[in-house]
């Protein structure tokens, strides 16, 4: 970890610690509405991440949108290995929490700042749900 690593605390947390590259946008998330789950990309044309792969990335987004299908779909995506590494949101609905619980996908939610503005797209981050922390390790290519 570099000496200038920044740490953000979340109010809500679930799962185990992971480290990876962040895929960031100030937009919503629904596995049914927004994703091509076979190709592993955001498919809704109006989504800010349209066309980008979410596989193995730590998704940093604003809030949960849409319906209840995500509660099953994270589990299904995990079984095929076409799943985000972790989820980090400004706020989530029960569906994302239920889906993360069934799919064993680490998740943080609820920050004092807009986490989508704080974390640069492509940054290397580590999340630690036990300590409720997200650590910005490297600003990434957009620094």
């Amino acid at each position: 970890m570099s000496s200038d690593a920044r740490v953000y605390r979340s109010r809500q947390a679930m799962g185990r610690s992971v480290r990876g590259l962040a895929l960031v946008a100030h937009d919503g998330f629904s596995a049914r509405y927004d994703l091509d789950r076979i190709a592993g990309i955001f498919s809704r044309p109006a989504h800010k991440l349209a066309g980008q792969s979410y596989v193995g990335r730590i998704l940093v987004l604003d809030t949960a949108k849409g319906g209840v299908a995500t509660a099953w779909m994270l589990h299904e995506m995990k079984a095929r290995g076409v799943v985000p590494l972790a989820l980090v949101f400004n706020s989530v609905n029960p569906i994302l929490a239920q889906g993360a619980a069934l799919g064993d996908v680490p998740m943080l939610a609820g920050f004092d700042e807009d986490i989508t503005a704080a974390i640069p797209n492509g940054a290397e981050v580590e999340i630690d749900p036990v300590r409720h922390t997200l650590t910005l390790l490297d600003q990434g290519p957009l620094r």
Partner: protein
Amino acid sequence: MRLNEEEQMILAGKSGPVPQQALKHQMLVGDFFGAEDFVAVTQAHIMADTESLGEAGVRWLEGLAATAEGQRRVRIPTITDPRGTDFSKAEFLGQTAAMIDLERRAIAAFVKLGVVMTDTCINYQTIQAPTRNEHVAFGDTGVVIYSNSVCGARSNFEGGPSALAAGLTGRTPRYGFHLPEQRRATLRLRVDFTPRSLNEWGALGGVIGRIAGNYWAVPVIEGIEAPPGSDQFKHFGAAMASFGSIALFHLVGHTPEAGKLTNVAPAGLISRRIARADIDALQQSYRKDDRVDVVVFSAPQLSLFELRELAGLCAGRRFAVPLLAVTSPQVKPDCDRMGYTASIEDAGGTVLSGMCFYQSYAREIAEAKGWKRLATNSAKLVNILGGYGYQPMLASMEGCVDAAVSGRLA
């Protein structure tokens, strides 16, 4: 979470591994949201189409269903949202044998768990509407928002795994909209017109959903003069839930908790105005083409009254493009009996039952049938189908039927 004696017994496995696993899942979610304890629920409603479940989800269900008889059945009436197909129309929809096989396996597992296969997202119109202050565990966002707002019941969005868990344990974590303080309005909206058609009610719900923006927002709406009917509330709420992930709204003078504004809104809540131009703009934003490949009435499933109206519009017409009308297994026999099915199908349409269009492998249907430009009167459906590769367009029921005849949306 604080557990009572019965919950401690379940957690210790005294009721068997299935309720034990269900309670552990519920505790993970409850802890995440800071729930202090559980609340008993009287009904559960499970969204579990196989496009969402996939092979992994069906195997997970089959694992639960393989548990010994006496240790695996739900404790309270537990019903299902639409399936991923109408078995009698699967070939017409271009669905594959693998999809149908997965559906049959999921159904077999649910039956072993004691789940009642109602296959409907309009259970509040067809099975049993919840009553005011009744705590329930409902899936399908349209069901939840209608039950909370119009019936005054208490539910969070319960995804399939959590709704099934609630059925198996007879309870759910007490957080969110089970708590009175969470049901207070957080934003105030004034509408200076009353929608005239179901697509306009849906569009208004969509506009409000976008403004409200997240699950924890509770809009209170003023300015609707006449009380909406059940189908109007249905489209209004389903679209609001779809566009905004909203689970509860109050309509001053018309919903049970909002006899007057001050019953639900804190003093000083700033009001924002919504004009007819706002819903016109939402509808126009989906008009990219005037040609139509398919017309779909679905999401939510149609009531008998909607089918009656549709049948009247179809009488004596001849469709140039396919028209699909989707309803529940409870409504379909009456639709047949009243002659509505014949009227729609004589014009070249198809009435489907027990499924919902977007929950039925919509992407694969589009590829199999060559459907892309889709007209519907459901704002919820246009919001969903963009991600499935469709170009959805929102219009009135009359406009959609005309489009089925001419192939063009006026």
